């Protein structure tokens, strides 16, 4: 195999490498979509409330577009890095060793390429070329390291916030001095550090990667709707807390349900589809999202204005995104537990056909509405706790209005599950797109029509009622929802 491989021209060697990257993109589709939408959506949402003078619009736009391009480049890089880590592991590798060597070289080339492209794009908003290039290189190296040591995902945002605060307070003056006095030295230091970091992850495929492979496998499994204990010991940081919180709540509810023989078959049956598809799993993840947003809000409080205000506004706007949790989490979870569903259908008392469809319809609607309600309460409490100024209250009201539209997403959950396919990135992208549209509608409702958010909620429920009736009628004609997508 290796001899045959060495005989191939260089461009032919890249073909399987690119195919493997495409496969990695398909695994990470939800994650990259999330990053992309947040990278684009949050600044846009923040901008909607920012009263920019016209002369600043072009300049801000240039910064914004370059920042978005940078975010996209980092997403692409993240996919590359994820792919390489997969290829470094014997269980998930799809490439022969010769291809992996090509992939490693392509990774290093891509890091430099991305840095140069981003630095060139940065010339439009007049960002300095070399520092931008160095910063992108450092970000690429940091991203790769964070995929290897996942606790860094938590450390980096904190470091960035601290660096921003330090910059505002003038604490970065020594760094500027070093840059002015020894630009080549600093450049060499950053580049060599980046290369060393890349070397630690990119150029080795030894057993030391086992931990990160376990973590990545678990992340991939969770995005495919499965919850596994198999490698939970590897799960560290927030991810571990998140997963164990979900399982703990689910486990407690399972014990409680089984301890009461009188509990309905439906309540017991819902537990069989797994924690990710159960309301306990959805609500614990919503709670986690709220807690994380609150934590970041608290950090933003420490920042000087106007950075602090901008980030706070962005975070409050992000609250609306958390209410997508049910719609994002349940479809892959139901797909992931379809074999379990097949067993559940054989149990005495389990509904079948239209009865099963109606039971699932009610469950999913309740979960989505409960998720929305949690969001509304959280945002209202946060605004009250922040003792916010008028501008932030306005952002929060837009967020509440956008959240008020999310019950409509239940239509996505009321579908013909028998024909559902494997989780795909397209519906998730469409959902985030719909959320951006919802943000625009919510902004128009609050800023232009100057109507309170709860009227939008009432209007949403009013629209939802006939749609729910229409779907309910169709349920009896659809095939049984379980096993989702059918066994194959």
């Amino acid at each position, binding site marked *: 195999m290796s001899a045959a491989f060495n005989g191939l021209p260089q461009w032919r060697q890249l073909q399987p490498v690119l195919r493997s990257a495409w496969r990695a993109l398909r695994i990470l589709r939800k994650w990259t979509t999330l990053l992309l939408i947040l990278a684009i959506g949050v600044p846009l949402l923040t901008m909607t409330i920012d009263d920019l003078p016209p002369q600043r619009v072009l300049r801000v736009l240039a910064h914004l577009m370059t920042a978005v391009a940078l975010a996209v480049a980092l997403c692409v890089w993240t996919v590359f890095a994820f792919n390489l880590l997969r290829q470094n592991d014997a269980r998930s590798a799809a490439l022969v060793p010769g291809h992996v060597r090509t992939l490693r070289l392509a990774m290093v080339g891509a890091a430099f390429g991305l840095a140069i492209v981003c630095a060139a794009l940065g010339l439009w908003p007049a960002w300095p070329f070399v520092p931008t290039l160095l910063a992108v290189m450092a970000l690429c190296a940091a991203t790769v390291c964070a995929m290897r040591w996942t606790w860094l995902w938590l450390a980096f945002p904190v470091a960035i916030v601290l660096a921003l605060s330090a910059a505002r307070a003038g604490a970065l003056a020594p760094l500027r001095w070093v840059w002015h006095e020894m630009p080549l030295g600093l450049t060499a230091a950053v580049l060599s550090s980046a290369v060393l970091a890349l070397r630690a992850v990119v150029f080795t495929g030894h057993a030391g990667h086992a931990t990160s492979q376990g973590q990545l496998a678990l992340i991939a499994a969770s995005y495919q709707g499965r919850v596994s*204990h198999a490698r939970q010991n590897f799960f560290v940081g927030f991810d571990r807390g998140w997963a164990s919180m979900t399982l703990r709540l689910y486990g407690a509810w399972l014990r409680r349900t089984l301890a009461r023989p009188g509990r309905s*078959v439906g309540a017991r049956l819902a537990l*069989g589809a797994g924690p990710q598809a159960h309301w306990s799993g959805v609500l614990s993840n919503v709670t986690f999202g709220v807690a994380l947003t609150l934590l970041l809000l608290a950090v933003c409080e420490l920042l000087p204005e106007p950075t602090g205000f901008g980030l706070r506004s962005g975070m409050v706007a992000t609250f609306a995104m958390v209410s997508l949790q049910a719609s994002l989490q349940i479809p892959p979870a139901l797909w992931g537990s379809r074999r379990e569903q097949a*067993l559940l259908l054989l149990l005495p008392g389990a509904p079948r056909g239209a009865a099963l469809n109606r039971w699932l319809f009610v469950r999913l609607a309740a979960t989505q509405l409960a998720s929305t309600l949690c969001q509304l309460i959280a945002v209202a409490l946060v605004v009250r706790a922040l003792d916010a100024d008028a501008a932030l209250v306005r952002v929060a009201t837009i967020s509440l209005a956008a959240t008020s539209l999310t019950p409509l997403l239940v239509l996505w959950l009321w579908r013909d599950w028998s024909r559902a396919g494997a989780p795909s990135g397209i519906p998730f992208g469409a959902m985030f797109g719909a959320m951006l549209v919802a943000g625009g509608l919510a902004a128009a409702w609050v800023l232009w029509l100057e109507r309170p958010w709860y009227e939008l909620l009432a209007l949403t429920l009013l629209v939802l009622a006939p749609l729910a009736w229409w779907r309910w009628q169709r349920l009896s004609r659809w095939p049984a929802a379980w096993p989702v997508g059918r066994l194959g």
Partner: protein
Amino acid sequence: MNQAITAPPTVAVDHLRLAYGNKPVLDNLRWQLQPGQVVGLLGRNGAGKTSLLESLLGLRDGTTGTVRLFGQPLDRLDDATRARIGYAPQHSDLFEWMTPAQLLAYFKSFYPRWNDAKVDALLDRWAIDREMPIGKLSGGEQQRLSIIRALGHEPDLLVLDEPVASLDPAGRRDFLQELVEQVIVRGTTVIFSTHILSDLERVAFHVGFLSGGRIIVQAPLDELMEGTRSLVGPQQALQQAARTRGWQVLGESPLADGRARMLARAGSDAPPSSLAGIEVSSVTLEDLFMGLTR
């Protein structure tokens, strides 16, 4: 005994068809299992064993034909009938988020009857940690747990899809012992698919061969083995002998020089031990498998 005769077949399949795209998997399949029958289902990889077992239980869409379990149409099984069915699927890595104790308590909550003593005894005998998450159990342990779950409510129809595939020889022996001593003795109807022919010889009283989307042969194992012979000789002589004696030709493969090997099953008469110009030998289950599922 009379009750057993008058009782409807445990499984009655009529004209069952299933296709994946343009490829037929089950083709007009007819099959009946009487109460208490223990049937080993044999077939090559991709012959449709899993599809057949899942179709029997209503887990496959796109099937046509009728399936009746305990005399009831599959789509109208009442709860009492469902409680009489046990199923251990091929994939045993299910409910990974639960512990064995949780899983068994969960399934117990649905059934009107549950044999705690037997479940506990099996958990102890097969050394399954009750509190370890199922996702952390080995493949063999997961399969054992899947079998225990299927046996817990003492079903009258037990469907096992390759139940011993992940078990080591000791585990297989334990499982077969349990199957013979506890399950079959109760008069449970058992269908199990397997590729391990030696296991099947130890347990199954009947074997069914699935090939071309149909059950081409189903017969008591002893009867099939005793009544079937491998015949090697000139092709025309073999065919002539089969025609005149009324043998059922189960398979025929050409050899060199106009000779052929034939698997032939004698009717009510005892099979011949020798024939002029034809080599006659007894067959093993493996010979039957190779001949019938070609």
